């Protein structure tokens, strides 16, 4: 039964010799095989997993265990370049791409002894919030009721990662979050998903979507696990010019579950027109929990919140349109030959990119184009500054903000699929913290009438992960989760 394992429990058991990494890994490899209907993985790497598990056990036997991640089987979102292992970004254009290099974050985890079970599925190039745009097929939310006609989506873009963890195929997984791609799928599957301060985790070797927004982070079953995993993932990387040149605090030690004296802000602009009752109820419950635990709750205002989604959907596609220009059939990846260079470009990219990717590249090209650059891109960046300033002002007063993570529970494939804009609204609560580069986390808060998980989001100021873990661990406890 793999579902019971957390990183903390595994680390404990491994240390005590109650279980070996090989045993743990074998159990999860079997789970991966049994769970193929979820389509959580694009590439399974059982040999590598067994190798690393054996190496972990050997290290431990020699008294040289690397830390709490040593020997823990995890899933690696297929956006992290892994040396010698196919990395596709869930796209046809990179279908057979095998990097000769290892991303900094996956390398950090490997060095910490983590055991990679495989590369998990995602929305193509991390663009999506339901994991329905992958070239390798959609991912099924493990919470899909038996006998359902269609699958529940796991959320996106890190859909494969959450399906793997929630389905018991991996103890934890890496994700990346650009507009909510860690937090929202965590909310849809009852997991903890954390996006650190922009720059905490290196982007070197992560297939780029939107450079000023992308941030790797952990997807785990508990808050404490997220803290443990983040400790191994994060850290300054000189190869990434946007990497934060700062020491890491002890994230696990910050999980004190004690919010006495903390001031929790409730941003009034997050109350949407037509917000489902259940979401409001969950949010109110979260506020009540915080009060019960000794925190002070107060309403705050983030006046530019309503501009966050449009701002995001200008800035992110703009950067993406430029970042994806390199996928041109010249040096690596898919090449569809043509009679001229331009024809080769058109055929390769037309065939290699899925619809959502093409849509965002076109939007991005448009908003950067002559005559529109000032009205769209420049304007959006200016509004972004205002959004960031809203948070700064709020954090002069409060320590942490509490909001819902997503405007709904997981929905069924087929709902919302025709309307890209409806899809974009999935990110309405997560996008503002992304634009401001702030650390944020989704914690399972409760369920809806159908029993599907709903997440609560906490946001703190720049580099205030310790306060975030403090509040998150308490909230988790109040909601009946964690240890």
């Amino acid at each position: 039964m793999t579902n019971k394992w957390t990183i903390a429990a595994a680390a404990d058991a491994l240390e005590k010799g109650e279980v070996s990494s090989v045993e743990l890994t074998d159990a999860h490899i079997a789970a991966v095989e049994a769970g193929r209907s979820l389509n959580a993985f694009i590439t399974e790497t059982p040999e590598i997993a067994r190798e690393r598990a054996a190496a972990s056990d050997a290290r431990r036997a020699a008294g040289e265990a690397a830390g709490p991640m040593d020997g823990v089987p995890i899933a690696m979102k297929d956006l992290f370049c892994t040396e010698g292992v196919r990395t596709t970004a869930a796209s046809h254009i990179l279908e057979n791409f095998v990097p000769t290099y290892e991303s900094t974050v996956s390398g950090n985890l490997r060095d910490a002894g983590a055991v990679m079970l495989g590369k998990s599925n995602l929305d193509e190039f991390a663009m999506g919030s339901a994991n329905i745009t992958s070239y390798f097929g959609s991912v099924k939310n493990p919470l899909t009721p038996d006998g359902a006609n269609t699958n529940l989506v796991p959320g996106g873009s890190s859909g494969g990662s959450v399906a793997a963890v929630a389905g018991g195929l991996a103890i934890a997984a890496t994700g990346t979050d650009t507009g909510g791609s860690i937090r929202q799928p965590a909310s849809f599957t009852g997991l903890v998903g954390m996006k650190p301060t922009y720059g905490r985790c290196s982007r070197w070797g992560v297939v780029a979507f939107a450079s000023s927004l992308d941030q790797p982070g952990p997807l785990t079953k508990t808050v404490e696990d997220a803290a443990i995993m983040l400790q191994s993932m994060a850290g300054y990387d000189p190869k990434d010019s946007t990497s934060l040149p700062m020491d890491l605090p002890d994230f696990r030690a910050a999980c004190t579950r004690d919010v006495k004296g903390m001031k929790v802000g409730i941003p009034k602009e997050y109350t949407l027109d037509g917000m489902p009752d259940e979401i409001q109820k969950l949010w109110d419950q979260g506020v009540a929990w915080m009060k019960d635990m000794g925190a002070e709750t107060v309403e705050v205002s983030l006046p530019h919140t309503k501009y966050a989604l449009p701002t995001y959907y200008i800035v992110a596609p703009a950067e993406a349109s430029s970042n994806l220009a390199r996928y041109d059939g010249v040096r690596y990846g898919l090449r569809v030959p043509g009679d001229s260079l331009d024809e080769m470009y058109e055929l390769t990219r037309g065939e290699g990119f899925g619809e959502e990717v093409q849509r965002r590249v076109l939007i991005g090209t448009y908003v950067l184009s002559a005559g529109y650059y000032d009205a769209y891109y420049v304007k959006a960046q200016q509004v972004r500054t205002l959004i960031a300033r809203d948070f700064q002002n709020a954090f002069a007063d409060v320590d942490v903000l509490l909001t819902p993570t997503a405007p709904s529970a997981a929905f069924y494939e087929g709902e919302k699929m025709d309307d890209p804009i409806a899809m974009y609204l999935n990110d309405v609560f997560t996008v503002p913290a992304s634009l401001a580069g702030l650390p944020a986390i989704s914690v399972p808060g409760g369920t809806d009438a159908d029993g599907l998980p709903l997440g609560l989001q906490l946001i703190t100021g720049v580099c205030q992960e310790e306060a975030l873990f403090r509040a998150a661990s308490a909230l988790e406890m109040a909601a009946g989760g964690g240890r």
Partner: protein
Amino acid sequence: MSYIIQGETGDWEVVIGLEVHAQAITNAKLFSGASASFGSAPNENVSLVDAAMPGMLPVINKKAIEQAVRTGLGLRAQINDYSVFERKNYFYADLPQGYQISQYLHPIVGEGTVTIDLEDGTSRDIGVERLHLEQDAGKSVHDQDPKRSMIDLNRSGVVLMEIVSKPDMRSPEEAGAYVRKLRAIVRYLGTCDGNMEEGSMRADVNVSVRKVGESDLRTRVEVKNVNSVRFVMQAIEVEAERQVEVWEEGGEVVQETRLFDPNKGETRAMRTKEFAHDYRYFPDPDLLPVKLEPGFVDEIRSTLPELPDEKKARLMADLGLSAYDAGVIVADRDTAAYFEEAAEGHDAKTVTNWLTTNLFGALNRRGLDIGDSPVSARHLGELVGLIEDETISTKIAKDVFEDMLETSKSPGDIVEEKGLKQITDTGAIEAIVDQVIVDNPGQAEDVRGGNEKAIGWFVGQVMKASQGKANPGQVNQLLRAKLLG
């Protein structure tokens, strides 16, 4: 003196602006650690970042910033403490990222000035608009395969300093002088080797024409990638003529990019379909803005060498050289260094003559640079010294010089070995003079009879008899005394 094209409908003047791309001297590329060296096998100096592999990120090469600031100081330009790298987006096979990282709204160097020296001895100031840093692109080779182009990414990502002039030039000569001066400055500074044949410096020439007296500028044409000073001047000549013809025939010059064909002596529109590129510039989100620390610029300023203009002024003031001579000497850093070493302790004008006439001539004939001169600066100076202290005559010195070119020996050694010391002992010369007079009574009569010019013949004879070593001045004196009394 203005450059005018006389057309059928009147006189036309030419307006020229130059964008010079200079490869900065650095070990590594602008944003990657791959080697920036020239001449390697194809795709030998390509890092993951240069190849634009997935997930790769740029990191600024600090040396490139230093070289740009250094060059900016050499251009007497404003250095901007805050500058931003932006992406210039377009698709081409030799541009791996699908964008070039360049600087657009906030370049690292602002306005400056380059003083050019013209043949008539006058000088003019040409304005520099800006200097910015950008990545060079790779190289496309189209002639190795009938159906495919080959791409070499060695050059992709190499540091380029783009120096944009104001449209202040009005003749091919001015443009040539500007490029030469720019090249001299960057070579003095050690920021670029200025080697146009190897492509480390290339010019895009913007040319427009207008009727003399017109104040507005007409449409300009860009002639791209001109790789020699001579071609820059030729390209301007032919392009200006072409434009005048177009206007005079009632047509309109089209704004376009053209290439100069030196074989045909004409410019032609570029083969590739050139529609106006929309580069969609935006600040590169993978990079932070460049902020220069206080003291950074001053530190670099304190290490600048004496630049051509300053050196020229000093040579004129301290050594009395003419503007022309000083200009020739300072035009090249190596030449100036050579001169200063050779001239130490000797007459500057004499050294100048030997340098610019005799040495340059010899080097040109042998196809050598001054850096490869078989005659060292010190030895040239010594040679001049031997003339100055009358050890040898100027004529003998020329022979010694030829020997120095062959053997690289010191002039002192050659004079010793060949026994070329000038004979200045009056008694010895007198003996030879007397002998020659005795041997040539007829000619002696001739001179005594009134043909003073025939003394020249006697001088020649005495010089021959003395193997050229007799001091000609003394020979002349003695002959006159003996023949003319």
